[in-house]
């Protein structure tokens, strides 16, 4: 056996100090198995050692929250004894090394997190970000990730209903694959990972253990360099078919009263699942490794404990329920092995070939894991930039078309048509709208969901950017008629050992906290992905937010396509003309300096609740959140979705018009209203001090800015739909 010393510990990603701490906690030198287990539990991915103290500051409660962070996924109350369970998770590092399997197992992992809790998964969402389209790996990564997400979700039969796809050169060396899943359950049928009952059997179910994914979590806790590709063996291989069987078998077992606790084997496999269960229950656990179903011969205890083979679960059963439970898994053709039991030793004890190969006090792995308060800097709001010289002579029509044809703003149906978004026959709002909406099966209510982040805002000012991401999900949920309930977050950043990066992280947490508090919109689950750097170059801070809302009555669902001609088009919210970091200035002009739009949380809440009331009272025909590209792009999207045109009037100089049309001020919505409702809407707006600008009317087929230009909606659509098709032609 390899000699365990400080040098080997460092190879395992631990620091010299951390190694000394292990010796201190153990009262002796660890053996190789024990070192492997410590390294798996103490890496950044599993221990949250850099982020934990900051995550604790986030709000995690409102009257809907049943379970906040700390479990496999968060749980919220959806009324009538129904709950909704959801979480988002990153699979960035593996997806860069092997895009198909990396993305597929990302989807598989998040699905397991949700059905471990007793939920039937009903919707997948994702946020995927790639480097510049011109970068040599981008096309390969895009195609691999999209087919990986589809390959897994389509097969298991859970619809992929929404998400975002974006390109920026900051992701050239580190792509982002964030996968979210939402499931439904009955309030009294939610399962947790806290173990109890000394002597209760510990059961292993699902796929066999192989040598894949060993040290996956450790790999995800370091930066990349030129040799990243050599890390391919650390990427797991997914089998959605087995996961489908595991899902059905687990849900069948959950109908019986046999389970004490259940935990999926995700990052750090058997190691983290067994330790988490025992640690939460303040118990010990004893496992005989010879009883683990292995796929390959001669696997060592070290390999068994660190494998990240997919589609496996660990269950603590009530004593006496073994036989009945085994029958269910055998029916589904899955392994079922009683591998050990709960003890009162408060230790993780492993036996192999009749020898003890590991004995670690459980609390030394979890509670005593390192926690760092790393140095950080604070970012001030950047100086305002005057863009007059850029926009004075800019052609409005030309700029609109450039944005609509740009890779980041073009129609994404090339992506989501590769995902089965309709299976389960409850997707009542498909991808492409402000939020996806899935009918709560068999009920008259719906689950609205969206995933958002604007990394260029976050880079320019992390705090405002994180606030904006929270607000955008809130607005997207409001726009479909839902009541926003809670969020899940996936915090993607660079190397936290650098104070600039840690500063981005801390500021983002602070921004998120403020926004969540103001909107009563807590964080109930999430994941942190650090070390998204290659050769010292970090990605933009990307705190992806997944928002979930309750649509009380599906017949009140709102959509963003125009419904008729001769209706009024109005902007709700204040337009100041903020252009820095907008689609126009950042992506079309190419000026990346300046501050992101300011977020005014009072305004956000006030305008959102106003829109919500209008939808409830059936006073609006269409609603669309104003985001990238400003009013003009939002308007074009509403036209393209309906094949109805619009004619709007804007006054002032060319610069004034550009500012009004392309600004990305926050807390705004574009709405379609019938003439007959105009007066009442104005009255409500007035009483609530809401700014509302009537900018024009819908008309047939032609998109028009009065005294400036006309273009057919058909032409806009052609431009908007061409980028992905052309890019992937060969």
């Amino acid at each position, binding site marked *: 056996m390899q000699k365990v010393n400080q040098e080997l510990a460092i190879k395992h990603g631990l620091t010299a100090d951390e190694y000394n701490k292990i010796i201190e906690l153990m009262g002796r030198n660890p053996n190789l198995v024990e070192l492997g287990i410590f390294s798996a539990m103490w890496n950044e991915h599993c221990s949250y050692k850099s982020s934990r103290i900051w995550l604790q500051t986030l709000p995690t409660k409102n009257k809907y929250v049943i379970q906040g962070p700390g479990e496999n996924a968060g749980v919220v109350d959806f009324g009538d004894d129904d709950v909704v369970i959801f979480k988002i998770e990153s699979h960035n590092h593996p997806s860069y090394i092997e895009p198909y399997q990396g993305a597929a197992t990302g989807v598989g992992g998040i699905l397991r997190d949700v059905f471990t809790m007793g939920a039937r998964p009903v919707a997948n969402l994702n946020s995927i970000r790639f480097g510049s389209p011109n970068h040599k790996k981008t096309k390969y990564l895009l195609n691999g990730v999209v087919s990986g997400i589809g390959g897994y979700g*389509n097969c298991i039969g859970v619809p992929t209903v929404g998400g975002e796809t974006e390109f920026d050169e900051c992701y050239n060396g580190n792509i982002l694959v964030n996968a979210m899943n939402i499931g439904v359950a009955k309030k009294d049928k939610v399962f947790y990972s806290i173990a109890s009952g000394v002597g209760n059997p510990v059961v292993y179910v699902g796929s066999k253990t192989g040598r894949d994914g060993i040290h996956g979590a450790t790999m995800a806790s370091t930066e990349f360099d030129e040799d990243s590709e050599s890390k391919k063996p650390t990427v797991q291989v997914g089998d959605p078919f087995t996961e489908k069987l595991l899902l059905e078998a687990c849900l069948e077992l959950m109908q019986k009263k046999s389970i004490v606790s259940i935990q999926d084997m995700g990052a750090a496999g058997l190691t983290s699942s067994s330790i988490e269960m025992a640690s939460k229950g303040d118990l010990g656990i004893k496992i005989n490794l010879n009883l683990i179903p292995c796929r390959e011969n001669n696997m060592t205890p070290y390999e068994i404990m660190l494998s990240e083979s997919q589609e496996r679960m660990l269950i603590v059963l009530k004593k006496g329920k073994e036989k009945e439970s085994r029958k269910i898994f055998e029916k589904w053709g899955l392994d079922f092995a009683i591998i050990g039991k709960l003890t009162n030793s408060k230790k993780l004890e492993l036996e192999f070939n009749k020898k003890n190969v590991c004995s670690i006090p459980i609390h030394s792995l979890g509670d005593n894991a390192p926690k760092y308060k790393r140095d950080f800097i604070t970012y001030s709001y950047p100086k305002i930039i005057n863009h007059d010289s850029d926009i004075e002579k800019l052609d409005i029509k030309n700029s609109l078309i450039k944005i609509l044809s740009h890779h980041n703003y073009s129609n994404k149906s090339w992506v989501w048509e590769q995902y089965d978004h309709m299976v389960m026959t409850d997707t009542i709002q498909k991808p492409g709208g402000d939020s996806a909406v899935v009918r709560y099966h068999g009920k008259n209510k719906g689950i609205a969901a969206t995933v958002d982040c604007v990394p260029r805002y976050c880079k320019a000012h992390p705090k405002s950017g994180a606030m904006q991401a929270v607000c955008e999900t809130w607005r997207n949920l409001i726009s479909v008629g839902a009541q926003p309930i809670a969020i899940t977050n996936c915090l993607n950043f660079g190397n936290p050992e650098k104070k600039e990066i840690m500063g981005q992280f801390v500021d983002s947490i602070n921004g998120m906290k403020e926004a969540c508090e103001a909107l009563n919109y807590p964080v109930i689950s999430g994941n942190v992905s650090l070390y998204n750097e290659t050769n010292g170059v970090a990605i933009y801070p990307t705190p992806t937010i997944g928002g979930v809302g309750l649509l009380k009555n599906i017949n009140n669902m709102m959509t963003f396509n125009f419904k008729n001609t001769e209706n009024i088009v109005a902007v709700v919210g204040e337009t100041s003309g903020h252009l820095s970091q907008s689609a126009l200035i950042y992506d079309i002009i190419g000026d990346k300096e300046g501050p992101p739009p300011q977020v005014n949380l009072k305004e956000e809440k006030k305008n959102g609740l106003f829109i919500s009331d209008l939808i409830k009272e059936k006073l609006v025909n269409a609603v669309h959140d104003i985001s990238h590209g400003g009013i003009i792009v939002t308007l074009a999207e509403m036209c393209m979705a309906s094949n109805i045109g619009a004619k709007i009037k804007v006054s002032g100089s060319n610069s004034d018009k550009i500012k009004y049309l392309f600004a990305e001020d926050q807390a705004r919505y574009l709405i379609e209203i019938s003439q007959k409702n105009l007066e009442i809407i104005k009255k409500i707006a007035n009483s609530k001090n809401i700014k509302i600008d009537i900018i024009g009317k819908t008309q047939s087929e032609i998109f028009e800015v009065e005294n400036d230009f006309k273009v057919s909606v058909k032409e806009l659509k052609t431009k908007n739909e061409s980028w992905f098709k052309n890019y992937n032609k060969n």
Partner: protein
Amino acid sequence: MKASVIVFPGSNCDRDVRISLEKFGIKTSMVWHADVKLPKSDLVVLPGGFSYGDYLRCGSIASKSRIMKEVIAHSKKGGSVMGICNGFQILVESQLLPGVLIKNINLKFICKNITVKVINNKTNFTSKISRNSVLEIPIAHNEGNYFASKNLIDELEDNNQIILQYCDAAGNITEQSNPNGSIKNIAGIVNKKGNVFGLMPHPERASDELLSGMDGSLIFKSLK
């Protein structure tokens, strides 16, 4: 009218199709792939999904499963069988229907609403639909590209076995409206006797006003 929906490991449209069958008054039971006996049924439905993970070849392992012996016997006695998507692939692999389904021409999974033209309405599956009408129904598959030899196609045409063809909104059968490269834009066929129907589009996804419209319900209404 009684239907049995076969549930293979990996089926994932079994629940969806049951909901549609029952919505249109057809009593439905779910039958597990390892069952030895088929309950008394007028119609057997092979649902969409990824039976046995689609490993080896789509539908091939399912075609050898225990319950398929019963399904084949049921069809030989003249009982109705309908295979949707993966179910169509299983019917082809079981040789209850001729031809093969290969990878989509763009080599990608495609999930979207498409339009099909009803070529033959003199079957148990299309009797309530007017001939040449255009239905909007979603597809969701990776291997839906129907292929057969020239002789076989001639035979299908001579016997009116082609039931659905991909077409544009106006009903023109064009190359542009063919989503997956199927020969002759074929989206659905029956066997010579007319009692076994395979189709790639999912009628159960277009049988609810809140989803993709009601065009798919015409197939369920015809079954009754």
